[in-house]
């Protein structure tokens, strides 16, 4: 157990702690700026992975009709269905686990930042003792900055970023931005059951993170909020903003076209509740080429 802890501290916590203090020193000794900058830097470091995830997410959205067609075609043969689905993935250069990478990375970063905030920004002697052993000796800034000022202006008063926000504002911002992130990244459902699951996911994550933001240091909530906003903006650029539309927001259920003539099928989407949107999608489409076409179609939807 200690080995896991040591690896975590060496690879993640210590770099984040030092980065946080360095950014604090150069960004007007304002810890909120430091956390926002750290969020942006973290997202930049993982930008290639994020792009991969966003592309995979956009492609998944685009492949929805094809997958529905495969499902329909091989209804009675799950093995063939799986084979055809994998072939479709391969053909389009996506991995079913491709979206997981950046998500996997997010969790240790959250934990690292959580500890960096409570240990590094703490103003008790114990925190100082901990910091003394974790600050890089070659860092131009260090002990002379301590204790860091963790208070930032907030509403009418101030907010201590190592404490949870006593108001519901920051948790609500986290919940809303998480909802927006989930919404914009959501792929079209292929069945009513899947659609129900999507709806659960769409609200479960925001509620969960919002709840965590109530109990965790508000510095971490600030990270979540900024990180979510970055994801929403990036995803918006990659696959369009259509998913965020609240009016007529019921997502279409993708079904194969009744008259599909081949397995790669020309497809149609059916709205359960949204006929005006249905009309837009009724036009027959050829299977789009990779990249931009997916973006265009999502913009239309």
């Amino acid at each position, binding site marked *: 157990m200690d080995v*896991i802890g040591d690896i975590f501290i060496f690879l993640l916590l210590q770099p984040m702690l030092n980065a946080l203090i360095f950014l604090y020193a150069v960004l007007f000794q304002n810890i909120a700026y430091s956390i926002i900058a750290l969020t942006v830097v973290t997202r930049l470091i993982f930008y290639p992975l994020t792009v991969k995830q966003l592309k995979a997410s956009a492609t998944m959205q685009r492949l929805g009709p094809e997958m529905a067609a495969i499902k329909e075609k091989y209804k009675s043969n799950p093995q063939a269905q799986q084979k055809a689905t994998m072939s479709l993935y391969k053909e389009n250069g996506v991995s079913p686990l491709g979206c997981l990478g950046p998500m996997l990375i997010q969790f240790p970063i*959250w934990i690292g930042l959580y500890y960096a905030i409570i240990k590094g920004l703490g103003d008790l002697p114990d925190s100082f003792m901990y910091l*003394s052993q974790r600050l890089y000796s070659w860092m131009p800034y260090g002990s002379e900055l301590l204790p860091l000022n963790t208070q930032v202006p907030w509403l009418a008063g101030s907010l201590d970023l190592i404490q949870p926000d006593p108001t519901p504002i920051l948790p609500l911002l986290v919940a809303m931005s998480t909802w927006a992130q989930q919404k914009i990244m959501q*792929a079209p459902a292929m069945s009513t059951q899947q659609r129900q699951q999507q709806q659960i996911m769409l609200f479960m994550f925001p509620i969960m993170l919002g709840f965590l933001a109530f109990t965790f240091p508000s510095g971490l909530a600030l990270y979540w909020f900024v990180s979510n906003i970055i994801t929403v903006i990036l995803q918006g650029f990659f696959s369009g903003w259509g998913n965020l539309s609240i009016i007529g927001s019921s997502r279409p259920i993708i079904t194969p076209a009744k008259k599909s003539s081949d397995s790669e099928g020309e497809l149609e989407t059916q709205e359960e509740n949204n006929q005006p949107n249905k009309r837009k999608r009724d036009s027959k489409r050829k299977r789009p080429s990779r990249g931009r076409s997916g973006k265009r179609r999502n913009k239309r939807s």
Partner: protein
Amino acid sequence: MNKRRLFPAVLVLLSIVIFTVSCTGSTLFATKSWSEVNEIGENLVLTTKKGEVILVNPASGKAVGQCETSEGRNGISAIYGTPLINEGFIYIGGFDGAVYKINPDSLVGSREDSPCTVLFDPNYQEESDPFIGGPSIKDDILLINSESGLLYAIDINSGAELWPTPFQADSRTWNAPTISGNTVYIGTLSGKIYSLDFNRSGFSINDDWNFKASAGIGSITLDQDVMFITSFNNKIYAINRNNAEPIWQEPFEGENWFWAAPVLFEDRLFAPSLDHKFYILDKNSGRSVAEPIETGGAIRGSAAITGNLIFFANEEGETWWIDATNLTYEAGGKLPKANYAGVSNLDGTLYIHTDEDLIFSVRADSRLPLQIFPFDD
């Protein structure tokens, strides 16, 4: 990715989060010892990071009584400072922002949750201003620094605040005030040290006396006219206590912070550091007179001296003995718990307070720490 596959994946990820937090949490959140043990009558006094004051019989290894302080900022109950004993009473500053004066006789047989007796509670601010450092007493005046940098003067008999307004330092203060005659020295986390002349009715700041390190003050030690200062900027300073003029050509510099107060023996200064080393310096020049002892762990607490032997422990619980006359050293026994507190020398017996609030006594002849509290039957 298919959301049906995503759901279990997210559950797995959450499990990883919980697992990682639980794995690392033990090393990150272990309760650390901080205060030194003191002695009153035949009993030892132990203060804990849970805000308790415990009276311990060293012969039986049992608690004979205890009381607790109340919760302070963010729900924390803690006592960081070493309990001060004066004329049969125990004085402590609590994290709850109150000063306590405890009659040890009233503690005997008391229940675990008995409240300690408050001597002074400023209640100036809505949120309590914790006392991290312990108090110091001169005659019947108790001086204590609050975390926000206020220095209070309190009548030890009535608990009345003596000065019209407390002295306000430029930064937080975590140390007990250092008193010499009618002068008190206050070290702050900004690195500044103040010199104040004081009496019952007020204080005056010695404006001509100026010292500032580039980081927080770890400790102040007086030796006749010399003041030794340890700092979080990795340096030890020696200055003239009367005018703050430096005595050494250059401050001594280690590789990490100096937090603990050094120990003096003849012309030597024995200084533990958070860089895992224990330095031996010439107290007149500040130069190293021997290779530093590599201990393998940060040393936050002060060493203690018994006869010509110096004893200390690092955070790993490893103990060391140094012969101060010939500067030879050897490892002592290893404590089973980590240690962040200093060693106390009480009537020739050394005591050490480790994590999980265990007390060990250490004998120079056997050189092995022996757990005396809680004594395991």
